């Protein structure tokens, strides 16, 4: 084919009028998967768009599905019976049966009625936990730790290799039991403790020692926290505190905490409304009837 001087010889030949249309080469119609993933990642908080993307083509599905199933939250309702069949927790079971649990990075269990914790987190449901092989963030409301002792490692120990963030809201148990639970996760970086108020300590577990000392050099979030002994025990048992970011709202042991993190604290979040809680803190009652969230 003749070429014009200066025209690159690599230009595709122009199609003749009578000839069949030349199909474009595949590389011009398909973006590299890593680019697709980068583009889809802009929609990580837009579930609707992710759902649409996931039904477009296989390439987009692969890029979107990891974000769609990043987080899994159970219902507020602790359990219910339907036709004699144990249904709780349906979302966990459905994801398990679809093989989606390995995609879950964040899992939150919101239990409305604390007394049902042991019922709902029985062997049947804990079986699904073993499929959460990449779980990084775990949140549990109203966890009754004493109900799981002393074999609590059997229930939650499978998260130990991957878990980075633990969020506990109004957990029940002695300080040692709560710290024992925290110590189940040797790679834990972030800790969130909400609504922990003074409780009568059980002296029988005073010798309970955590199985590991997590690094805990990420973010600590405390809200409605008046359990000073828990913080004291944490400092002793974990050999000090190393948090770099701290978020505090109505916390009793602020000075203890700030002093423990003198060398590591970089970011502190506080609230001008906190001072209105002085009375709440000084009285040490800490019993609230409404949720902090």
């Amino acid at each position: 084919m003749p070429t014009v001087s200066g025209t690159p010889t690599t230009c595709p030949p122009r199609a003749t009028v009578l000839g069949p249309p030349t199909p474009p080469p595949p590389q011009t119609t398909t973006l590299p998967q890593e680019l697709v993933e980068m583009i889809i990642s802009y929609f990580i908080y837009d579930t609707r768009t992710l759902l649409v993307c996931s039904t477009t083509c296989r390439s987009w599905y692969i890029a979107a599905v990891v974000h769609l199933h990043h987080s899994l939250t159970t219902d507020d309702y602790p359990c219910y019976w339907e036709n004699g069949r144990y249904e709780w927790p349906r979302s966990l079971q459905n994801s398990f049966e679809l093989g989606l649990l390995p995609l879950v990075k964040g899992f939150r269990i919101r239990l409305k009625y604390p007394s049902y914790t042991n019922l709902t987190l029985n062997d049947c449901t804990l079986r699904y936990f073993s499929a959460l092989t990449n779980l990084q963030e775990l949140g549990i409301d109203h966890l009754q730790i004493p109900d799981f002792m002393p074999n609590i490692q059997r229930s939650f120990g499978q998260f130990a290799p991957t878990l980075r963030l633990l969020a506990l809201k109004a957990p029940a148990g002695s300080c040692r039991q709560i710290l024992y639970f925290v110590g189940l996760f040797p790679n834990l970086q972030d800790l969130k403790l909400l609504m922990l108020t003074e409780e009568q300590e059980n002296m029988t577990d005073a010798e309970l020692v955590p199985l590991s000392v997590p690094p805990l050099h990420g973010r600590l979030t405390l809200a409605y926290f008046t359990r000073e002994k828990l913080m004291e025990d944490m400092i002793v048992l974990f050999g000090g505190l190393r948090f770099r970011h701290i978020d505090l709202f109505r916390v009793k042991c602020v000075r203890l905490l700030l002093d423990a993190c003198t060398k590591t604290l970089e970011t502190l979040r506080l609230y001008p409304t906190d001072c209105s809680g002085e009375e709440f803190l000084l009285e040490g009652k800490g019993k609230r009837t409404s949720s902090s969230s």
Partner: protein
Amino acid sequence: MHIRFDLSRNQSLRTLETTAESMTSVDADLSFLRTVLSTVTSPLPLNIVIVYQHRDFGYMLLWPERPDRSDPLVGPNPEEQATVALHHRWRFRELHEMHMVRRFRLVLCADILNRVTEYTTRGLERVVNTEKAKGGFDYLHEPLIVSEVRSPRTRLYDQQTGTARRHAICGSAL
């Protein structure tokens, strides 16, 4: 009163954060941040981060989501607009007074939430531009930074804005 927040020993402190809402809440102590700031002795440059949400611009989320999937927000009426503007003035005045206590770099963050993102971001940009035009940030020695941040939400909150499916899934449930 705020001796609990004595930061004089925290020599690696770089950032103090708070929310715009808590600065103007009815039970807020306006001197709180100044008092805490006066205890900071860290030699590092200090950032003050103020996190804004859609509520700080007078928008309210509707519950439940509208069936026609129209906008889940309602905007402020004229009376509320006046209150919103007043709160912005209070905050900027307080920030100016804080800067007299200790020099810092100011970072204003729009806490984004998917479909309501544009309201918060645009609202913050509008307020900042208005304040800049009045010379309200002339006291700052370093450039003002306006950015976006996304705080972790509960599923309920995400669902409220129509971003979560039943039994599932949101950006971060924690």
